[in-house]
């Protein structure tokens, strides 16, 4: 699938809400923290919509205007590290990122983030085209069909 900007936004929304939410429920239960994992999931979604604008801009410089799965893997890991960097930055300032508890360790963050990311990455290359047969022709848009 060669994503468009709208397609990126819709795909990210679907994956993080439909698959990311139940996984996050599990981590909230496992960590005994009903707030932090959901706040992080929200940040990944909202920051991600911004990242998508950058990725789409980079795509337009490529002849095929595509985005190999490896790029998604690498940028996904990058997004995670930068999000942790922001959490860390707030802590250094003696503050906390809104919704993020003080007990969040890098290990817990990484376990949650990597699980959600790898499951959604795999689903975007398998489950989504099966659920939405128009998705791959519409650059990742699933919410609407052909006019």
């Amino acid at each position, binding site marked *: 699938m*060669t994503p468009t900007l709208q397609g990126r936004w819709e795909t990210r929304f679907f994956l993080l809400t439909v698959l990311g939410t139940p996984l996050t429920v599990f981590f909230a239960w496992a960590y005994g923290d009903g707030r932090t994992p959901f706040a992080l999931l929200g940040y990944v979604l909202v920051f991600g919509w911004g990242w998508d604008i950058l990725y789409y801009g980079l*795509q337009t410089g490529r002849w095929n205007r595509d985005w190999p*799965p490896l790029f998604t893997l690498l940028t996904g890991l990058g997004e995670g590290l930068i999000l942790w960097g922001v959490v860390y930055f707030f802590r250094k300032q003696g503050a906390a990122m809104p919704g993020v508890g003080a007990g969040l360790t890098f290990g817990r963050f990484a376990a949650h983030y990597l699980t959600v990311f790898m499951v959604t990455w795999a689903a975007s*290359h398998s489950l989504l085209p*099966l659920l*939405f*047969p128009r998705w*791959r022709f519409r650059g990742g848009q699933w919410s609407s069909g*052909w006019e």
Partner: protein
Amino acid sequence: MTTKTFTLPATLPEPTRLCSRCNQAIQPEQSSCPWCGSLLPHLVQPSNLPDWFQAGEVSVQTIRQSQMPTSETTFLALGGGLGSFAWVDYLRICGVSADQIAVMGQEATPYDRFKRLCTYSQIFGDERIRSDSGSRPDNLWGWPGYAVQEIGELLGEQRWAEAGRIFWQILSEPTLVETYAPRAQMVFAALEREMGRIGWARMRRRGEICAVRQTDDGRYVVAAIPHRQNVPHFIIASYLHLALGYPGIHLTPETQAYRQEYRDLRLVVQAYEPHEYVYEQLAQRGGILLLRGRGIVASRILQRVDEIRQETGQTIRVIHLLRTPLTEDTVYGQARRPARYHWQRQPFNWPKAAFGGDLRVVLEEAAPEERQELFATWGGVTTSNRRDWLEIVARGGREGWYQLYFGTITEMRPNGRKRLIAQFGDYVSNEQYRFVADFMIDCTGLNSELVLHPILADLREHYELSQNLTGQLEVTANFELTGLRNSRGQAYMAGTIAFGNAFAPVDSFMGLQYAAQRSVDGLIRAGAPGLRYLNGLASLRQWWRWWQGAAP
């Protein structure tokens, strides 16, 4: 499909051995006319059909009274090739039963013509074709793609390294490695499986389509001559799909003139004609091969010649003749397609985003004139970005067995000793060069001109259908031929005959699936019977049936 049997009057002559387009003699086993290139050399021209069939609206009562064999169906696919298959597959998965669908075409299986043209152009079963992993005509979802299937098979055989290499390929193509491409045999085997699953044999009628007409009750009637018969059969249908493919192979004027003058079909061949004897002779005796064209077929033939050189040790020289040099990169926006050694390379015949990314949207929204520019920039004659092909050109040039010239052929004639004398004018100096070669292989492709297609040319004339700027018939973004709409009846097109409209890669597996999806969605909106919109869990359920090999 219900068949009404009548007494069969012998209204048409026996199948002729003259090409229906150029009227010159051809051998029955030839799949294309060697004189004009027609891929439909045995067609009964529409003008040879009964007078009452020539009306704009044919009366259904007249058809019935004609006592000619007539059948009726709801959905009728014309062509019988991969375009028809993709549409019928979609219809079946969306709920239409096999007895409401008929397919009419010349070939025994939907991939016969594709396979034959692949074989002639040296792509045998084990060779990889230029197509994406997810573009699989047997699977409308595209998952799992051919690559995942191949990885699974390799893992089953414990060939870990090869499986890992393909996984890395689909992960990082086309940036870090060359693009994955499936082997031709995988495509055919997967199609066979899907043909069995959807009941293809029950829907298929083998024969030659002669003409299409509207009926006076809001449907269509198609005249076709069933295989090995000589009486036209009429099929009436509510919904029509035309995927008729290329009408001919491209024979350059020089090739046509040479053949006409010397009546020789051996020394000068088109790559899409059978010419295995060329490689057999080169393997036995070596020789000089004159090659024309800079597309994927020329690349593959060059590779085959290099394989023969290395396997047999024969001295084989390739003189590659192109009309013009190509040194400038192609630029679109901020992106660039590089030209190397006078070849343009890209993974597929269009940039990937033209198949489903933002370039698909750009083209759909573009004005007709602007589309022409986009076609010229994104497409053109290109070859795969295979490193081994680039390496052959570079090495051949270094070793001296591959020589590139630019110019136009001014004279070709046999030398009387089963060789060919070719003279060409140099592109810059116009100085004349002369070569004695053993063969010339013309790799200038297939021909899609509308006027060469008897069925489409007749339709355009009969119903005053509009053409786009490339000369093909105009269809909407969902591939409907609106000029042929007949009350509730609708006609759609797919494949190369739908080129020049809102979607560029019509002539690709993915393009056929895209066209199938858009046209079936159009039929669903129009309320065509038996169809359900495919999405969400219903789609997942249908995929599961596909996975299990169960009927839709």
